[in-house]
């Protein structure tokens, strides 16, 4: 890619974003929109910098919940996918459950979990995040471990390879890209689940609960400032997952994913 192309790829979305914000600002000024209806971007940005330390604190709480849940869900998902790929009959039991749970907004379960722990506990939220992540990782990694090319299996059998050797040298490397795909999907999902699970009671210390409480108090611009914080947090998680994937695939030397 030439540098001109790279500038163009970056500049066009950037100019579009600036133009969009300018229109927004202009519309608020021109139509004299009331702040409780729609806050102007300049006001939101002002609120964002005024409340920067509070937004940072709230983001750390939600971010920590998302991170703990992401790590725990990934670890359990990977462990379970190994067990499932070893014992196929379990697969037929668990996979429909995983699909069913993925089809409903399971974060409402946090309301039930909240009743099981003390009101100030972060544990229900973290459990919720890890559940969402767990199923994404489980389904993807199990696919990577089981959907191995027949030719590869026949070659390994012709070398008299044991099941353990086939697992180590074929199934696990085959599942690595699936794991990173799962992480790329579940990183933003973890952040969203972390916010949403704050809507169901518990401590009012995260970004999700701050957004709702500011809206309840008609502090519209402040609510938007927290939304901006939430966007940045979600973006940070996504970028980290993409960087991790690039580092891992460079390590494996497999920069080409199109010939799979």
């Amino acid at each position, binding site marked *: 890619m030439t540098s001109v192309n790279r500038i163009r790829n970056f500049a066009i979305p950037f100019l579009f974003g600036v133009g969009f914000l300018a229109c927004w600002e202009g519309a608020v000024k021109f139509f004299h929109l009331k702040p409780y209806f729609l806050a102007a971007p300049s006001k939101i940005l002002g609120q964002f910098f005024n409340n920067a330390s509070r937004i940072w604190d709230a983001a750390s709480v939600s971010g920590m919940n998302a991170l703990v849940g992401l790590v725990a869900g990934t670890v359990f998902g990977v462990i379970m996918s190994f067990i499932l790929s070893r014992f196929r009959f379990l697969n037929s039991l668990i996979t429909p459950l995983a699909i069913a749970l993925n089809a409903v907004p399971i974060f409402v379960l946090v309301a039930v979990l909240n009743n099981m722990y003390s009101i100030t506990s972060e544990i229900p939220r973290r459990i919720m995040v890890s559940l969402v992540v767990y199923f994404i990782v489980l389904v993807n990694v199990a696919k990577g471990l089981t959907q191995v090319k027949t030719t590869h299996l026949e070659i390994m059998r012709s070398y*008299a390879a044991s099941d353990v050797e086939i697992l180590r040298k074929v199934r696990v*490397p085959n599942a690595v890209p699936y794991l990173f795909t799962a992480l790329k999907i579940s990183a933003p999902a973890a952040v969203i689940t972390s916010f949403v699970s704050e809507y169901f009671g518990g401590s009012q210390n995260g970004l999700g609960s701050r957004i709702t409480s500011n809206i309840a108090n008609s502090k519209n611009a402040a609510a938007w400032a927290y939304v901006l914080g939430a966007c940045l947090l979600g973006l940070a998680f996504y970028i980290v997952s993409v960087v991790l994937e690039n580092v891992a695939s460079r390590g494996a030397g*497999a920069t080409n994913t199109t010939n799979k």
Partner: protein
Amino acid sequence: MSAVHVAGVSKIFNQGTPKQVDALVDVNLTVEPGEFVSLIGPSGCGKSTLLRLIANLLEPTTGEVTVNSKTAAQSRLDQDYGMAFQQAGLFDWRSVAKNIELPLELKGWDKEKRAARAQEMLELVKLPEFADLMPWQLSGGMQQRIAIARALAAHPPLLLMDEPFGALDEMTREYMQGELLRICAETKTTVVFVTHSIPEAVYLSNRVVVMSPRPGRITDVINVNLGETRSEDTRAAENFFSGITSVREALRGTHADHANAGAIRGVEDR
């Protein structure tokens, strides 16, 4: 001592169910050391099944398969053969050299010995400077040459190939046939080669085993006499064409109008 001995072998899939398939019925075949034998026939004739029985990737329903005077199972455990398929089947996450080293890794060779052998094999298939590339950086023909290098890395006496050049274009295919003959002559490897190309079978083989489907069985064995060394001139030689004609007639069986073709099987084949 024969390299491969198949005696009275049948293979029936899904026996006793409505989906029963008689893949092979009463197959007898002996391959001598150093021989190049092709299995040819229409799809469903059981040629790939026969190859997998020799490789012990499948167990025969009845009969016996012996490889290097051992049971097929023992030969597989001893890695007495190498195998190559239509898809090169290289591992995307391993470099070219690491792909070739895989069978040696499984045999427990140490690192330096593996690297030396991989380089030796790369020189054999004339790709010595490709060791550190990844498989997807290679063309289809190159990938297939690496697959052959991998199959031969442990210097097995027997090479089993299942339509290895089936996915290659005609030019590459003819080049690969020449390379395979050179490699097998250099390494004195016995080859059992599945194909559905008549010229390919004739060009490569000492003997062409003709098979027919429903149920899969051997209907004819054609001896090919193209001499010890074959070259591009062989493809224009008189006895190359007469070999092709013999195999074609054997494949056509009773459908052929030729006087003597098909006399072998009589009326039972529609």
